[in-house]
């Protein structure tokens, strides 16, 4: 994949990722799916999940990366600073991190861990 490939502007989740994010927003833990999606990106980075392990395709658009998801430049800065995945295509990387993040968090929630436990263990 060449370095010239443009970054994604519309990002989302696979069908399986979408099922997982429903678990996250159940019981109104998050105000909305956008908050859960951002949290999942952050969690995936903290947990050392590798974007290369995420499905390469099959994502259904959920958000406009710049218009809805990104406020300021936090997501791009995170990916750049931590040097995760394709740093020149931060939103494409963020999408894969979100996919892995929601699946992992959903798995832990269904294992009766609380979001507070998950957050504390991830933030070290």
């Amino acid at each position, binding site marked *: 994949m060449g370095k010239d490939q443009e970054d994604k502007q519309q990002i989302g989740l696979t069908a399986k990722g979408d099922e997982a994010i429903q678990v996250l927003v159940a019981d*109104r*833990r*998050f*105000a909305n799916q956008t*908050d*859960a999606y*951002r*949290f999942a*990106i*952050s*969690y995936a*980075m*903290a*947990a050392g999940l590798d974007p290369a392990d995420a499905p390469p395709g099959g994502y259904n658009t959920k958000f406009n990366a710049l218009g809805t998801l990104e406020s300021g430049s*936090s997501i791009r*800065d*995170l990916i750049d*600073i*931590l040097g995760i995945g394709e740093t020149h295509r931060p939103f494409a990387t963020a999408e894969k991190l979100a996919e892995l993040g929601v699946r992992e968090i959903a798995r832990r929630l269904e294992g009766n861990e*609380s*979001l*507070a436990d*998950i*957050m*504390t263990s*991830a*933030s*070290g």
Partner: protein
Amino acid sequence: MSLRFESVSLKNFGPYREIDTLNLGTDSSAPIVVIHGENTLGKTSLFRALRWCLYGSPESGSTPAQAARHLSEYMNRPASRDGETDMQVCMQFTANGHRYRLVRMARFEGGPPKLSADLRVDSTVIQQASIDAEIGRLLHPQISEFFLFDGELLKDFYDRLNTDRERDLLRESIDNVLGIPALQLAERDVATLTEHALQRQAKALKNKKDVENARKQIRELKSKQESLDKDRKEIEDSLSKAKSALEDVKERIAGVEELKADAREMEGLEVLIAGGKQEEEQLREDMRRLLTTGWLAPAAGKLNGALQQVVAKNDAAQQQQKAIQVARDRVDVLRKQIQGGICPACQQELPPPDESTQMDLAEAEAELKRLKESAGDGPDLRLERRIRELIDTTTAKTYQQKQEQLNKVVATQFERNRRLNGLKDRLKDNDAATVRQLGEEQDRLEVAIERYGQILRNQKPKQDEINKQQDKLAGILRRLGGGAQPEVAAEAFFFEYVRTLLTRTIERYQERTRAEVEKAASEMFVTLVRDPQAYQGLRISRDYRVDLVGQWGEAMKTSEGGKQLVALSLIGALKRAAVRGGPVVLDSPLARLDLEHRANVLKTWVPELGNQAILLVQSGELTEGQARDIMGNRIGHEYRIYRPSDDPEMATIERTQ
């Protein structure tokens, strides 16, 4: 019977954690035990401990089953807090030459208390089922008001005596203690036997016309008697059913108080649950907000790692730049020295250059060059600042705290809801209409019982008429039959005689008791009042209506104080009639009397009560000094209730004499 209390021991009853063997034993020369205690210290608790031990109910007017529901209120609270579960009162007493040891115990382990009692007479253990009967035989609970007397009731006693129901209760109590109902039943049985004897006597008659006449009269009498017996049995059955139903209704009404408490608790719980719900919702909202603003929190650890690296890199770059600056300054100084001039550092004239200065300059320039070549990019402070901005060190901690708060609130709400559902289950069948209906049912039953009692009383003249006709017929049969069948005539005569004897015995017994009570009450009253010459005494009618009789024989009205003296006199007289030789325990009997009447009561009334009087008094009615002045060496034991610490829920008893 000569019953005497010897001692009482208490464990965890009311404010008493442990009272080990309070000696109550007295003799005829010093029959009085005085227990002093200020208000709220525990006089009434001690009084109720005695009542509970004897009858299973701390308060008069309630059955042991009713009392059990509120018994936990008497468990010593500090003991409960320490995890103790048992409450116990032990009494030792003597009666009829035997030693009695009665222990009553309640265990509170959640739910209804577990109750038990143990009675030993000398070394014989009395069966559980027989304990109440054995105690009742010695001190019948129906007359407990005459020897376990709560002074607070004094003010009501006189007025209660002037209602038909209370008088009936009083007379019934006395009759029961004296065994009158058994005599009345015997009277009825003998009436039946008399009737059979009359029938046999009629059969033995020789004149046909006489036989027919006698048989006709017997049939008529028998029919009347059967009708009367049938009516009486129906009424007695109805009365028994109504009394049983009334007991049931009263128990349910007693339960209503608990239901009211449940309803109040339910209202309180609903308010708490609503508040808890708001608190829970607020916490969840706070937590959602934290996730909106603090979504970077999980990455804080990684960002910290990155920050350490950037900071180290920036520190190294800054060190390198400092070294370059030092080398550059050295080159500048050496160059100026060679050119001649002022030192930029110390502003002194520089010494003239020599060969070594040239060599130093060459070395300094070489060092500067080496440093410049080895230096990378300068420090990236913008990146360092940006990473610091992204690191969130507070959200995870705050979120965790909120989660813990939420867990507590949810657990509390769960408990509250569980309790609320329990209360709702209890209350669902007892709404206001049901409670009102219970009150109406009680009124209806009380009216019915009153009416049945009246009907039974109205039967007496009818029975008397039948008896009279039976006597008349018996006389006729005796005359007509002559000695035809002397054994049948003798039998009829015998039964007639026994019946008459029983009737007279009952009347005499009742009348003697009434007269005895009237005489004793009158004597007591005139010794208590300040102006005895103004009264003849008390008149007690057959139905126990009490009148105060003035010096000219007229019924008099009296003051509130006078009513109390009448009540005291009557109680003393009834106690003497019903509990001969037994003990009397009086809780605050003097509180409403003036000093002169108090002295009269102590000097004349108390000694009249028998061989043992236990007085529970507070200093407002009788100080320790006054007690000794008035009663002197007639006091066998004197105790003081006091608080051993600042804890208002604890009290103990010490001996003062």
